[in-house]
């Protein structure tokens, strides 16, 4: 059920690589088919992105490589510093919510950002090397997040890790093994277990099935959908794959050249796309 107030509201998210000039924003974007400013050479990774994520909903961001969708998710996870924009949180979970409320969390110190991340977010990256310590046991990877959240009982952490690995269909017998020995699909499942370990309010999925075999992809997607429903966690799904978007999301934003070109209900985006780029994307995917 959607509750009216979003847990996260982002406005004007902007990230550029380069010096920037007065012409950057007006000379880039989908109308020009480029995201590099012809005047100063600055790359506008994304600009003016607004989004809101409501409790328990799944919001999709779709677009081709270089559209800026991964930049958006990484800014929300504070992996990349935004050049401009405002992100407000209303999770109701952070103890310090009074301090967080109505604040632009993008302006927080990295310490403050880390606290927010540990308390309310979980992320799964396309590349498991970004989300996992490959030489630390699978159980240890999950324990790390619990340790961040202040857990100090090894037995409890192992119990919770085992439970999460079981949920994500990783054999518990391999809990003490390092993920570097695992298959790609299993690494993603460990990443998912790790992302969910702190019971996040917001789950961020960045191209999680890209690069996996089709059958493995399907299993990972099923798992995400199942867990998403079971845990009622609001989720942001970034993918270039309309199949993933169709399967997981209720609302979708379409990005191109660093801008949002269209946003709507996912079935509307897929069946009645408005923007020329979305029409192209949808017709290419279906034929």
């Amino acid at each position, binding site marked *: 059920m959607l509750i009216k107030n979003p847990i996260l509201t982002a406005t004007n998210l902007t990230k550029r690589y380069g010096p920037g000039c007065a012409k950057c924003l007006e000379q880039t974007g989908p109308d020009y088919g480029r995201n590099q400013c012809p005047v100063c050479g600055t790359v506008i990774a994304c600009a003016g992105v607004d989004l809101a994520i409501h409790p328990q*909903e799944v919001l999709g961001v779709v677009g081709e490589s270089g559209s800026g969708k991964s930049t958006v998710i990484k800014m929300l996870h504070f992996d990349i510093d935004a050049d401009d924009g405002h992100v407000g949180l209303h999770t109701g979970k952070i103890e310090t919510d009074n301090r967080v409320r109505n604040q632009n969390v993008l302006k927080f110190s990295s310490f403050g950002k880390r606290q927010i991340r540990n308390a309310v977010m979980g992320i799964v990256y396309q590349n498991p090397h970004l989300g996992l310590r490959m030489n630390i046991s699978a159980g240890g990877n999950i324990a790390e997040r619990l340790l961040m959240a202040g857990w100090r009982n090894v037995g409890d952490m192992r119990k919770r890790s085992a439970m999460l690995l079981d949920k994500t269909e990783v054999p518990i017998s391999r809990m003490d093994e390092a993920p570097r020995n695992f298959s790609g699909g299993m690494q993603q499942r460990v990443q998912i277990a790790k992302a969910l370990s702190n019971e996040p309010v917001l789950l961020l999925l960045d191209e999680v099935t890209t690069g996996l075999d089709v059958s493995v992809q399907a299993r990972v997607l099923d798992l995400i959908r199942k867990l998403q429903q079971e845990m009622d966690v609001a989720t942001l799904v970034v993918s270039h794959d309309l199949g993933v978007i169709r399967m997981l999301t209720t609302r979708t934003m379409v990005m191109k050249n660093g801008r949002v070109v269209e946003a709507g209900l996912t079935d509307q985006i897929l*069946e009645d796309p408005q*923007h020329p780029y979305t029409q*192209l994307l949808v017709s290419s995917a279906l034929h």
Partner: protein
Amino acid sequence: MLRVNNLSKTFTIHNLGAKEISGFRPVSFEVATGKTLALSGPSGTGKSSIIKCLYRTYLATSGSIEYTMANGETVNLVKLPDTEMVRLRQREIGYVTQFLRVLPRVSATEIVAGPLIGTGVSYDDAIQRATVLLRRLRIPDELLDAYPVTFSGGEQQRINIARAIIWKPRLLLLDEPTASLDKGSIEIVIELLNELRQQGTTMVMIFHDPDVMHALSDSIYLTQTIQEEECCECNR
């Protein structure tokens, strides 16, 4: 409950040089709470498109769809924010077609129980009610825990209908959900839908089979062929 005013839909196909295609002739109709309306007319008159506009799968080009919500407030479904529309879909407005579009590796009972769980019913309770409903629709017990992607067309349609009616939506949009069902199954579906009617569900429906249509509808709206000049108009 539902008042459609001069609703029209034009598709702009940018890849064909912004070619415009009209979806249907502008329509206006009303459906009172608890009443059922059938859309009827030759194929190509845009009946499915009208239903999709009501469900917001299509964005209407002009006109309005005034819908009175359970709380008495009236909203225009054409302009309603996406998140509000999602909320209505979860709580009030159901939609069913002849095509089952479900996720792989989800059992029949879970698919049917899904919308109920979404409205806050406990998992076990929802599964229980889904099982009862599927049995009424003559889905064999051994299929209850199987994945419907492997089912026959008729079985899939029955799963689809069960999923649409189990949570008793206030407004149910039906687009030929019985297209390839056998007579026995159709009778059960009519019976189930009539039960919903008696419980107050409002419906807008498309049924090709005149017997089914008459068995279920209080009134009929005739859709008309799109006129040549209207096409020319929109190409201008």
